């Protein structure tokens, strides 16, 4: 059997149902194998689009995403998605073609040192030197990508080796003596953590993307509700704890300034909102005054901590993470627990319940938190005319989708507003680029999510700056009839940079204005998608419903307030209590 046919057998054995990729010279043999393999292949228009689509697929489904590219420029175009997957712990296997072995190191046509270039940005990589290694390498790549702390794994296959005739036998095991992730968590440490929680009077649960990756959302809810622990999530953790309580809609106060007709369900009583630079005051102040912070699958990123030396000055820390290198990296943990969120949280609940803590001890703490919630609700000043405020645009999308869509985003103001105002009821609904902050992530990620979850509406909230960085994938969506709905929050600026120039650089605007280019409606139509433009607040919810009900890919140009700032915010390098706006 040709090595490439064995490769296809391996993909099937791993349960791969779709590959995103683009052929070229060095992976011609691989693409020949696709003809008979019976695996769906989606032809992207740029390898970066393929890489992000594989990420979107992985984040939406929890399965390993797969992206293919050829050697040289094909592989270098994957650099951004690989780095993105590394930063956000996304399980993706990248399979790149390489020049023939006799050309290696000779500056052959389309040769790049892919393994060398990607070494700092992969969880692991395999440089195939013998065609017999291919089946094992593929299975080990999948195993490494999805286990422990997930991440990108790259397999680089020289063209001549991929044509080799090899005996293929299914591979049943992996041999990785240096790779044994710890999942269970140390029982003694877990007991210590339970005791610390019982003793705490001002606890906060700080949950991150690790909870989503471990599919531990149910365990998180059970843990949080086994007492009245307040919960905040990072940008990557949104949805791990439901933003809404069981009582739908109802008579709860609409958020201040929440204009138009968009209405929301009542928030979950223990949900404080997102924390960090653009988090809620309730979440950030709670962290600031907490006496015990239980971090689960979160990594104390600088966007969360603000000024590190003044972060949560009164708190002791329980830190649960599957990656021991994260524990005590930025903030020293008093009770470190290496293990994945699912295993550790389910044990922690048992230990905690056994101690029969008195919930009443948290009453004072909740009074304090409720005070912040009342005093500083998330809100904005609505327009007095038909102008669409960007925050309202997100609320309208929530209403138009019933809050049940998978939402992807690019990076910038629209991303923060989406995180603040959409409200995610479940994990794997919010897909964005948190660590690397990749503009152009949202559209291809939506494409991947829609392929992975064909029964759920997938909306991309994009910026007018960001969306152009991977707009070419609209052609892919049109060709494959992938029905993503792209809502461009169009303010004509690179909005977040503009905001920083306004606030911190004396409003000396330097190269942030994008102008009215391109005409996104025409662009959509040129790509074979449907284009729409909405400018009126009064009809926005219905207009959005119409866009969502339109078959196939749709691009909506939503004109919003040009110079609106994302608030509240912790100015960079400041502690959380110095929030402004």
């Amino acid at each position, binding site marked *: 059997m040709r090595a490439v046919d064995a490769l296809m057998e391996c993909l099937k054995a791993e349960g791969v149902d779709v590959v995103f990729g683009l052929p070229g010279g060095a992976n011609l043999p691989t693409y020949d194998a696709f003809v008979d393999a019976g695996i769906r292949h989606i032809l992207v228009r740029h390898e970066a689009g393929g890489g992000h689509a594989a990420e979107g697929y992985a984040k939406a489904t929890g399965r390993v995403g797969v992206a293919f590219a050829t050697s040289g420029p094909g592989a270098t175009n994957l650099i951004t998605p690989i780095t993105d997957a590394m930063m956000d712990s996304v399980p993706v296997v990248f399979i790149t073609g390489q020049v023939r072995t006799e050309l290696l190191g000779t500056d052959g046509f389309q040769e790049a040192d892919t*393994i*060398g270039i990607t*070494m*700092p940005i992969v*969880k*692991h*990589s395999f*440089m195939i*030197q013998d065609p017999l290694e291919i089946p094992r390498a593929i299975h080990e790549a999948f195993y*490494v990508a999805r286990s422990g702390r997930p991440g990108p794994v790259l397999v680089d296959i020289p063209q001549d080796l991929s044509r080799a005739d090899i005996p293929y036998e299914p591979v049943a095991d992996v041999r*990785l*003596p*240096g*790779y044994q992730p710890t999942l269970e968590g140390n029982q003694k440490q877990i007991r210590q953590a339970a005791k610390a929680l019982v003793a705490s009077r001002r606890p906060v649960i700080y949950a991150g993307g690790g909870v989503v990756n471990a599919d531990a959302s149910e365990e998180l809810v059970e843990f949080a509700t086994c007492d009245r622990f307040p919960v905040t999530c990072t940008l990557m953790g949104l949805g791990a704890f439901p933003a809404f309580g069981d009582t739908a809609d109802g008579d709860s106060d609409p958020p201040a300034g929440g204009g138009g007709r968009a209405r929301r369900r009542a928030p979950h009583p223990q949900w404080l909102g997102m924390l960090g630079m653009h988090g809620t005051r309730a979440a950030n102040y709670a962290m600031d005054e907490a006496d015990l912070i239980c971090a689960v699958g979160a990594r104390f990123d*600088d966007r969360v901590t603000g000024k590190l030396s003044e972060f949560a000055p009164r708190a002791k820390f329980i830190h649960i993470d599957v*990656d*021991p*290198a994260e524990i*005590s*990296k930025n903030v020293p943990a008093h009770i470190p627990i290496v293990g994945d969120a699912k295993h550790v949280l389910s044990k922690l609940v048992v230990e905690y319940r056994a101690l029969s803590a008195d919930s009443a001890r948290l009453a004072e703490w909740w009074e304090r938190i409720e005070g912040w919630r009342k005093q500083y609700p998330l809100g904005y000043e609505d327009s007095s005319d038909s102008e669409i405020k960007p925050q309202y645009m997100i609320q309208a999308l929530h209403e138009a989708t019933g809050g049940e869509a998978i939402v992807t985003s690019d990076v910038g103001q629209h991303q923060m507003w989406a995180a603040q105002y959409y409200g995610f009821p479940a994990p794997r609904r919010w897909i964005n680029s948190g660590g690397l902050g990749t503009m152009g992530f949202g559209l291809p990620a939506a494409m991947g999510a829609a392929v992975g979850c064909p029964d759920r509406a997938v909306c991309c909230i994009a910026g007018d700056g960001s969306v152009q960085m991977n707009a070419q994938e609209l052609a892919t969506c049109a060709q494959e009839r992938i029905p993503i709905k792209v809502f461009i929050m169009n303010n004509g600026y690179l909005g*977040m*940079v503009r905001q*920083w120039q306004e606030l*911190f*650089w*004396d409003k000396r605007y330097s190269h942030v204005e994008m102008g009215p280019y391109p005409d996104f409606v025409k662009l959509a139509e040129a790509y074979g998608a449907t284009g729409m433009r909405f400018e009126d607040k009064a009809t926005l919810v219905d207009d959005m419903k119409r866009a969502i009900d339109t078959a196939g890919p749709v691009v909506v140009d939503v004109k919003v307030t040009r110079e609106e700032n994302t608030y509240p915010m912790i*100015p*960079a*390098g400041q502690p959380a209590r110095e929030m402004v706006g």
Partner: protein
Amino acid sequence: MGEPATKEPLSLEELQASGNLRTGRKHVLSILVENKSGVLTRIAGLFARRGFNIDTLTVGPTDDEQVSRVTLTVDGALHPIDQVTKQLHKLVNVLKIRDLEPDDTVARELALFKVAADGAQRGELMQIIEIFRGKVVDVTKRSLVIEVTGTTEKVEAFESMVRPFGLIEMMRTGEIAISRGRGET
């Protein structure tokens, strides 16, 4: 967004204060790795990324042909070393790492010195070589090549003794280290 948010320029003193965490304590890391291509680059990359300078680095076979031993010494504050060690553990091809305690470790390096030694000075030089239990491994009328093994301190002491004679060049292997006692390193 880049940091910091303020438009005030950073003084050079501030920049240095923020980045300079070195204490000067030497760490000897003994790392067992799978004998596969690219492993050394992965290890070195973790140090390079942080701006750590690897002072010495040796790689050699072990009693198991599938496994190699990397011994590297690096000068750093305890915390950064701790972080980089954890990152090293995450490399799939790394099997085991020890940050060796100097008191529980025997460390040696080999050095070769080429020294100008004509006529009159040769006797005195031979005495020094004897004190350091060095070996003369090459002789010409105008030079000696001397082999010295020992701790880094001993090699450096020998260097300072022979330098006045006219040190032509010096080669050092960097340290290898093994733990004291019965247990494996």
